[in-house]
């Protein structure tokens, strides 16, 4: 890492077109002025990290939710098919089929509850 000592009013030039000016030094705080081309966004590090994390989390949560909905749909389809069979069947066979139909949908692997996100 390049380490430079600068006084208020002094500048650092990065590449051809980024200019960093030390505006003010006061106790633990340094105020910087940064002139950069429009195509080069400048962020405070903690904000850049937080927004990055939020974007990735939104994409990942969505992927998980889609898997969750697909799981719910499959579980419901299985439930409906079993219900239909149960109605058609009689006696011992019906009881057996009902046991299958009453099993809670296999949701745990999808990490979601039976509630569909709005």
């Amino acid at each position, binding site marked *: 890492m390049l380490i430079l000592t600068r006084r208020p009013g002094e500048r650092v030039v990065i590449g051809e077109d980024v200019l960093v000016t030390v505006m003010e030094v006061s106790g633990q705080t340094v105020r910087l002025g940064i002139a950069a081309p429009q195509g080069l966004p400048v962020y405070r590090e903690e904000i850049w990290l937080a927004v990055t994390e939020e974007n990735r989390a939104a*994409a990942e949560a969505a992927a998980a939710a889609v898997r969750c909905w697909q799981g719910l749909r499959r579980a419901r389809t299985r439930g409906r098919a079993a219900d239909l069979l149960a109605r058609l069947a009689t006696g011992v066979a019906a009881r057996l089929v009902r046991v299958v139909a009453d099993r809670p949908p296999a949701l745990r692997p999808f990490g979601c509850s039976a509630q569909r*996100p709005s």
Partner: protein
Amino acid sequence: MTTIQSTRFGAVEIPAEDIIEFPLGLVGLRGLRYALLDRNPGSNFFWLHSLEDPALALPVVDPRLFFRPLPLALADEDRERIGLDDPAAAQLYVTVRIAPNPADVVVNLRAPLVVHGGHGYQVLNSAPGAELRVQLFAPADPPHARSTRRAGDGAPIADAA
């Protein structure tokens, strides 16, 4: 017409005019070209799907449907990039963090997406109350109930007309 092979939605055809160029990308994500997919017409929720990464899609929604007035303050540089003095004249979206429980669904009001003239930018919103994670639906308030609230005041809101 461009066809993407989405890992979620299979083959999706995207008309050229629906492609949005993000010259600076989304913060922390690769890719400069996206399209808004309306997979659930009428829901007001869209998928911002990458044209370059078949597995990358973010759910987005126009925050103005839920937050009135929407706190919005952009830096001059961002206004210049977008090419609009009034960002309210552009399409505006926020990323949604989906969760199984609606009360856990949050949106990012701090870094909204502004889309105008085929270009999009993720900008920083410095308005008070425009936090990184703001609850979209309050627990006691179903999404279709008609009421409004301001971002950050913690009261229930929803107006997904």
